[in-house]
Structure formats: C-alpha cells, structure tokens
C-alpha cells in the first residue's frame, strides 16, 4: 500500500482500503509510535473510520493533535497531516471525544488554515455548542475578508465552507449566528453559497434556503451539483426529491442525498416515495 499523500488537506485513505484491515490494537500501536508519521496518519484515520471506542484512542489522538508546528510542505508527511487526521477522527468519536473539545477549540485558532478546517469539522460533528462563538468570530468579517481569496492559493482566508457547515451541524439558531452566516449566501464561489444555504436551512428550516440549494443542482459545474446534493442530504430537505432525481450527477451521490432526506428530513414527500426513488437509482 502506498503511504498517505504528503500535503493534501483532503487526503485520506480511500474507503476501499478497509478491505485489507488492520486490527484495532494495531491501529493504536501505529498511532502511539513516533518514528513514522505516515503510520500515525493511517492509525488516526483508522480509529475514526471504525469509530473506535478503545479507551486509549481519544488520549492518543489528543497527543497527535498537539504534535503540530508551522506548516512545512517539504518535510515528507508533515506533522500537521497527522494532527489533521487526529482532529477528523475525534469528530467521529462522540461521546468519548467530548472530553477534548477544548483541545479542538485551541486548534481552531491555529495559524494553519488546514488545521482550522479539520477542527471546525470535528467540532461540528461533535455538535460542540462551545464552538459557536469562536467560529462566529472567525466568520464575522464576512465574505469580503474572511471569505477573500488567500493570495497565491486556491483557498480563502478562512476555511469558510467548514466553518459554515459546523454552525449548521451544531444547530444553535440564534439571531447573531444567522446574521453571521447569511452574507455568505452571496459569496462569489458557489461552494460557499451552498455551505451557507445548508447551514441556514438547518438552522431556520426556511424554504428560501432550500431553494438556493435546489438552484445549485442546475449549476454547470459537476463539482457544485455534487456539493448541493450533499448539502440537501445533510439538511434533509425533502421538497428537493424531484430536482435531486433529475440533476446530472452520479447515482451514488443521489443515493447519499436521498438517504439524508429519509433520515434527517420530515414531511412531504413521505418516506415511501423517497425509498421508491432510491430503488430506481440502484
């Protein structure tokens, strides 16, 4: 098996590698040793993927989270890659990981925006209410500043997509939170618009935000249509059934979105109609 990719913030072993499994004890050992960061990277990923409830998993992931330093892309598997995977894994390990929310909040202030992104997603997954205020602070300067392009990179000044999605997942629907999120519905990048509409739909349940996502299902870029599918699924927006069925994208993603409509949503169209549509797409 090839080692994990070096410096992509999105890098994670593909799900297919689960087929050649290691044991939980082996994953713990790989994370514990400190000679080979690529083994730590894989161990951290494995513990999250398998939602390990091993008593040592969270303490070791917490140590890995601290094993970070200014980003150095030339240094093989850079240590922040291990910290990023540790953060992602912690997001999947509720309730045990709730004990380390304060560590994740610290990472949310890290200079490395890739780490902030991973921490935001984990805090969203853990539905950590304590994260709402610091996330709102990160976004408060709005699309023109927090959402401005970072010179010389394809990224933004803040990992807006992850921060917005976390607010939606945590679900604290107060006026100040809505006021921070709403301007991002007009961001120039469609993926940010999608993330903002998803969060607003989750927080307020208002149909106008569902309509923004349904419109994005007709965007000319496949990548945007895919994101809108995932966001409609996360929000469980059942009125989107027909547009989801019709949009041009892989059936695999439509099925994931429809699963979200079944599990997260309520009302019309009803469950049998949703399941019948899923049957068709298999």
């Amino acid at each position, binding site marked *: 098996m090839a080692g994990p990719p070096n410096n992509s913030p999105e890098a994670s072993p593909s799900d297919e590698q689960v087929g050649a499994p290691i044991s939980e004890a082996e994953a713990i050992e790989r994370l514990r040793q400190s000679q080979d960061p690529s083994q730590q990277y894989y161990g951290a990923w494995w513990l999250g993927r398998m939602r390990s409830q091993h008593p040592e998993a969270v303490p070791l992931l917490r140590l890995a989270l601290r094993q970070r330093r200014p980003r150095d892309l030339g240094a093989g598997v850079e240590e922040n890659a291990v910290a990023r995977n540790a953060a992602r894994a912690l997001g999947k390990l509720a309730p045990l990981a709730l004990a380390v929310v304060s560590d994740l909040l610290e990472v949310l202030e890290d200079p490395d925006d890739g780490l902030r992104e991973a921490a935001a997603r984990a805090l969203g997954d853990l539905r950590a209410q304590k994260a709402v205020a610091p996330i709102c602070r990160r976004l408060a300067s709005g699309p023109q500043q927090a959402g401005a392009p970072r010179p010389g990179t394809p990224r933004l000044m803040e990992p807006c997509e992850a921060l917005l999605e976390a607010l939606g997942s945590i679900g604290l629907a107060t006026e100040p939170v809505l006021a921070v999120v709403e301007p991002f519905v007009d961001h120039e990048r469609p993926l940010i618009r999608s993330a903002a509409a998803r969060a607003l739909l989750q927080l307020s349940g208002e149909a106008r935000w569902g309509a923004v996502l349904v419109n994005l299902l007709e965007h000319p870029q496949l990548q945007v249509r895919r994101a809108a599918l995932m966001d409609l699924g996360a929000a469980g927006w059942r009125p989107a059934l027909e547009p989801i069925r019709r949009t041009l994208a*892989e059936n695999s993603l439509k099925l994931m979105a429809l699963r979200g409509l*079944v599990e997260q949503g309520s009302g019309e169209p009803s469950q049998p109609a949703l399941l019948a549509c899923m049957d068709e797409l298999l």
Partner: protein
Amino acid sequence: MDECTAAGIHRPEQNDGRGLERLVAAVRGADSSEALLSSTEDLAASGDPEAAPVLVEVLGFNNPGAAVAAVDGLIRLQGAAVEALLQLDAENYGARAWAVRALAGIGDVRGLELLVDALGSDVAASVRRAAAKGLGNLQLAQLPAPEQERILQRCLQALLAASADGEWVVRYAVAVALEALASRLQSRGQPLQALLAGLRSLDGDRDGNPPVVQLRARLALERIQQSWV
C-alpha cells in the same frame, strides 16, 4: 453534424445497413467528449442489435456520459446485447463495471455468474449495488421449474452473503433484491425462511445498519407478508 445523428428523431432508414454504418462511424470518429456522447445516444436509440458490440466498446472509452448512454442502449436491446457484454475483456475494469450495470438492467440469466462474482468481489460499491439489484430481477419465466429453483437459490445465497457488505448502499440494494426474489420463490419452505431471516438482520442495527437500510428492510418484510393475505 450529420442530419442522421440529430437526437430524438426517429428515422426508419437508420435501421437499414447503411444507416447503422453511419451511426457507428460517428461513434468511432468522435473527436470530442460531446461528439462521443451524442453519437452514442444516437446509436443507442437505433435499437439495432448489430449496435451491441459497438456500444460495448464505448463502455471502455473512459467517458462516463457516453457509458451511461451506452448502458441505456444495451438495456434496450435486452437479450440481444448479452453475448457482446459477456465477451468483454475482463481486464478492462472500467468497462466491466459498466457491463455489470447493463447486465443487471437486462436481467438475462446468462449474466448470472458475472453478477454473482461482481456482488461478491468488485471493489466499487456502485458496481456491487447494481449487481445486487440485478440478482433480484433475473427473467426466469421461460425456464423449466427445476432450473428456476436452482438459479433462485444461487441468487439467494449471493444476496444473503452480501447482507454483511461494508457499504450501506449495497445492503440497501440487497434488501430491495430480496424483496423481489421473495415473490418468485415457489414455496414457503426453507429458502423463504432464510430470505426472511436475511431481511430481519438488515432491519436490526446490530451491524451498524443505518436507519434507511432498516426502513427499507422493514418495508420489504411488510410487503412480503401482505402478499400472503
């Protein structure tokens, strides 16, 4: 673009030899992704059994849009497409994955072994999912009863084994296929009992079945029981 390849217009002359030749030439000569897609759609729409080997070729072109159109065309050809699909080069993984979808959609028993094999061992969940659905929908009415029973048994065993698949969407497809299979079992004997046990295991959260899989399995169990009343 050649006027014969305008999509959606039925022209009887396409079905003579020259019409087909032109459609095939358009597919083979396509010099862009868009041209390949539209020429494949036209060839698929011809409904000509002679188009099958060329549509199978398209499955190997690494162009998902054109492959979807080719799969649709092959499913429309039904049994006439099966031989061409079975002759596919097993080494061409991408093409094979599309062929599984086509065979699953056609439901011809000659595809049985390939579907069983794909469900049990393909690396892509999307292929295993299609194979599972296909195993629930094989057309058996023309076969003698003992042969039907043998094939149903084979489908049942493969589906029950896949009810422990690592991906939820494959388990979902297994629930759908088991429901389809139940109506075709001749008796309520041991095979049906095994089938129901399989659905009941999908209706529990023991193996981390997400709610959507449990709901689908429960719906299948309810419909099977209603069919007895």
